[in-house]
């Protein structure tokens, strides 16, 4: 996003910066909806500087025309070294706190760092930023922005808290039952995770995924969250410049985890609402051969199942088709199953591991990602799993886990929590019930407002169709609606464009960050926007 919008009359950022951005965008989406992004200088609008006209329309138009001009020049330009002029520093909230002892650098950073240091233009991350500047609090800030853009699970924190209080009795080092003596946890531990934790996680995964597939702890590498797990697998399965196919819409974080340091491209395989956004093998085939024609080497497919952001589950048949496809092309499958335990519908979740058991397929191409941030609500503790049948991948991943190890006291704590079978059983069931309760109520209320959601059976969000409210029926219209939700309704929801959805107007709304009692408040705020859209249309 252009952060240089302080003077409405001079909104244009350095051309070179834009070119690089456009370049990466054109590489990333072979079938992006619009080759040019119309960036609305939101900051100016929000802060009321220059009013809607000066603050947004004129710089918007100028910017749009500049992109048009640059687009025609783009194909000839070869970006080499980063701009030698000092780039403007991102005006994030932390910047104002940095002591004056820092300075604008004359010494260069890497190309990767240059790209990363730019303000993030994904509305997913921008939305999170906006919430952090004005977060809703029922008592202290009732007019703040309600966070519905982060799939954190707050519904069962009381259970976790209760367990901790009961079992720790005031000491993180434990008492009797838990041996957390400093001599045990202080020294170097195996970077890829303590054996006891792997065993406990294998058991938890077995339970949470329906009890029909066994997981072998020796096929696991533990990491500080699922985020590094995805990155490490990317490093292991493909070289810089290769690509993974990814069905859209997809979790915005993949763009970071797979592209940034591993340098692997993500080629979208568009799914449609007519199929309820289910994966279409024909589309996969097309994407694969188009990539091949362009000379891009596809090394794997990355899916999330249950799907983020849609919330649908892949049937065993779909999984078989996917495996056949991967087998035929001799590529890998990365299956991110972090939402496996968050099912609420009548459909049962089937892990790809379960399907592998029954099918004669080269298991060495299948790798599963799991973690405790969603199903056990402890995102802060950073517990992620790489599960692979490929010994070479495991060996390499184990060595890489040294860069992303789980803190030892946390490993011990989580091990004992997972080993409390009664607590875990109670937790899994209660969690499912509460998610179902909130989800049903929320989706019902949305339906009453005329907003339909995609069919889903899992996850902490609903995938809502607001295409009827946007005008025009385009990414621009969607963006404007997102802005309306942010500024008028003061809720942060994730627009489909941030998830690379091919159809405009879809939004991911997370409902596990609010309580059941807060649903009416949220619905009321949404209703205001719905009505204002209807009246203006």
């Amino acid at each position, binding site marked *: 996003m252009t952060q240089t919008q302080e003077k409405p009359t001079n909104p244009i950022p350095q051309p070179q910066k834009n070119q690089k951005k456009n370049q990466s965008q054109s590489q990333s989406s072979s079938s992006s909806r619009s080759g040019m992004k119309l960036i609305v200088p939101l900051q100016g609008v929000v802060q009321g500087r220059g009013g809607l006209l000066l603050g947004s329309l004129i710089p918007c138009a100028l910017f749009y025309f500049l992109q048009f001009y640059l687009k025609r020049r783009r194909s000839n330009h070869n970006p080499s070294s980063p701009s030698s002029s000092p780039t403007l520093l991102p005006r994030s909230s932390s910047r104002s706190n940095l002591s004056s002892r820092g300075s604008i650098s004359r010494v*260069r950073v890497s190309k990767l760092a240059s790209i990363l240091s730019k303000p993030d233009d994904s509305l997913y991350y921008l939305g999170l930023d906006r919430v952090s500047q004005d977060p809703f609090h029922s008592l202290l800030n009732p007019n703040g922005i309600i966070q519905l853009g982060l799939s954190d699970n707050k519904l069962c924190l009381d259970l976790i808290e209760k367990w901790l209080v009961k079992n720790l009795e005031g000491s993180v080092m434990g008492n009797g039952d838990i041996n957390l003596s400093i001599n045990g946890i202080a020294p170097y531990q195996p970077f890829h995770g303590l054996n006891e934790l792997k065993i406990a996680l294998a058991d938890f995964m077995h339970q949470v995924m329906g009890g029909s597939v066994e997981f072998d702890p020796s096929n696991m590498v533990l990491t500080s969250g699922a985020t590094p797990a995805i990155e490490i697998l990317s490093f292991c399965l493909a070289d810089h410049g290769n690509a993974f196919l990814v069905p859209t819409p997809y979790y915005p974080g993949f763009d970071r985890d797979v592209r940034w340091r591993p340098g692997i491209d993500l080629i979208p395989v568009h799914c449609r609402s007519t199929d309820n956004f289910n994966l279409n093998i024909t589309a996969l085939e097309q994407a694969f051969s188009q990539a091949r024609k362009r000379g891009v080497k596809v090394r794997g497919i990355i899916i999330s199942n249950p799907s983020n952001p849609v919330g649908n589950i892949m049937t065993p048949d779909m999984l078989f088709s996917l495996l056949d496809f991967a087998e035929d092309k001799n590529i890998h499958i990365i299956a991110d199953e972090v939402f496996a335990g968050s099912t609420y519908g009548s459909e049962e979740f089937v892990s790809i591991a379960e399907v592998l058991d029954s099918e004669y397929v080269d298991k060495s191409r299948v790798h599963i990602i799991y973690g405790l941030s969603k199903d056990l609500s402890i995102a802060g503790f950073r517990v992620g799993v790489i599960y692979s049948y490929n010994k070479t991948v495991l060996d390499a991943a184990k060595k890489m886990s040294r860069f992303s190890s789980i803190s030892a006291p946390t490993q011990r704590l989580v091990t004992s929590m997972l080993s409390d079978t009664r607590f875990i059983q109670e937790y899994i069931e209660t969690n499912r019930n509460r998610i179902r309760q909130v989800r049903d109520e929320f989706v019902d209320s949305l339906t009453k407002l005329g907003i339909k959601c995609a069919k889903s059976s899992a996850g902490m969000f609903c995938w809502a169709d607001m295409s009827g409210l946007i005008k025009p029926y385009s990414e621009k219209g969607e963006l404007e609606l997102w802005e309306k939700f942010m500024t008028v309704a003061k809720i942060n929801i994730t627009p489909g464009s941030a998830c690379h959805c091919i159809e405009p107007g879809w939004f991911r709304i997370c409902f596990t960050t609010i309580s059941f009692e807060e649903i009416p408040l949220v619905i009321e705020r949404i209703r205001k926007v719905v009505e204002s859209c209807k009246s203006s249309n």
Partner: protein
Amino acid sequence: MSIEIEQEHPSVELSRIAISETHGENSPYFAGWKAYDEDPYHELTNPSGVIQMGLAENQVSFDLLEKYLEENSETSTWGKGGSSFRENALFQDYHGLKSFRKAMASFMEKIRGERAKFDPDRIVLTAGATAANELLTFILANPGDALLVPTPYYPGFDRDLRWRTGVNIVPIHCDSSNNFQITVEALESAYKNAESMNTKVKAILITNPSNPLGITIQTSVLESILDFATRKNIHLISDEIYSGSVFSCDEFTSIATVLESRRYKDAERVHIVYSLSKDLGLPGFRVGTIYSYNDKVVTTARRMSSFTLISSQTQQLLASMLSDEKFTDNYIKINRERLRKRYEMIIEGLKNARIECLKGNAGLFCWMNLSPMMENQTKEGELKIWNSILHEVKLNISPGCSCHCSEPGWFRVCFANMTQQTLEIALKRICDFMNNKDTKDIQS
């Protein structure tokens, strides 16, 4: 490359990184560990086993930590006021807990005898210094570029700085003629060497106090390194992971102090790495930091730290411990004393075996010279002795070649990862070995 098996479907390929050897785990540094793993010393159950002297871990001050945790169990679990447990469980903000960053900043200041100031908002948290060094490399250099690193250096750098980043290490050769100090000539020579290979140098990485030398870098040398970096317009990374393990507080000058004395001119090229693994003896906790004077680096590092976050539980626990001034003052003082005593003990013991060491003043190890014992002043000669020490004396020590030392015959010997009794036994074994050797020499 994957092996082509004669069948319908060739097995699925992996990345070049996955199958490369750049992780470096085939060096003798790690081979010694293997020997230890197979036959580890235990004073009761395996008194003739291999004593591990190749692991730079600090176990001399555990009792202080234990005592603190016992006496402060409430605050260490739940923290002091403010954030509730719920926030803790979900807290995965890559800025890190403010209270923890504040505590780290003040701890780092204390270690430097308050001769430097640290701003908590310039601290980026990572899961260990290993991740911090790799992260900085990703940020400062492109694949194919190089970092200049003085030899001898920590063997792990080969992996941490090069493996996934694709960046090269060009050594700055140091030798015993001047106690392995870094000279401007050596810096220039390394830089020219890189140029001749058509490689762009992006940064210098120094470890201060040095691993494996166990000495602090003199202020004048730091100044000349910083001047060199400024002349060439490159970055300077100062890995100060052993800064709290200097035997005498006055003898350590941090690059932060040098910058302060220059009123932070040109500071934006300087970045400090720190961790609690050595000074606090908590490597299992995975706590590392990057402190950068460069705003862009701070912002970028923070974002990249998503791949290496520290558990909020650990941050909470350590925040209260490190902001307890009485505890930290006491800990730092006693830890230094105990390390110094250990160092004196090992030097004395080695002297009795007529073995000389570099005069050290920091760290968890000493830099031992066995070249008088070598038949050939070569790498092979060095490995030959290393092998006999590993298999006959049953001590795992690190040969200089694994640290890329250009002068054969030097070895790093760790002394802080064991009890005093175990150290005594290790010293006795060395003494016996040397005496036997002399006898054999006399006889032959």
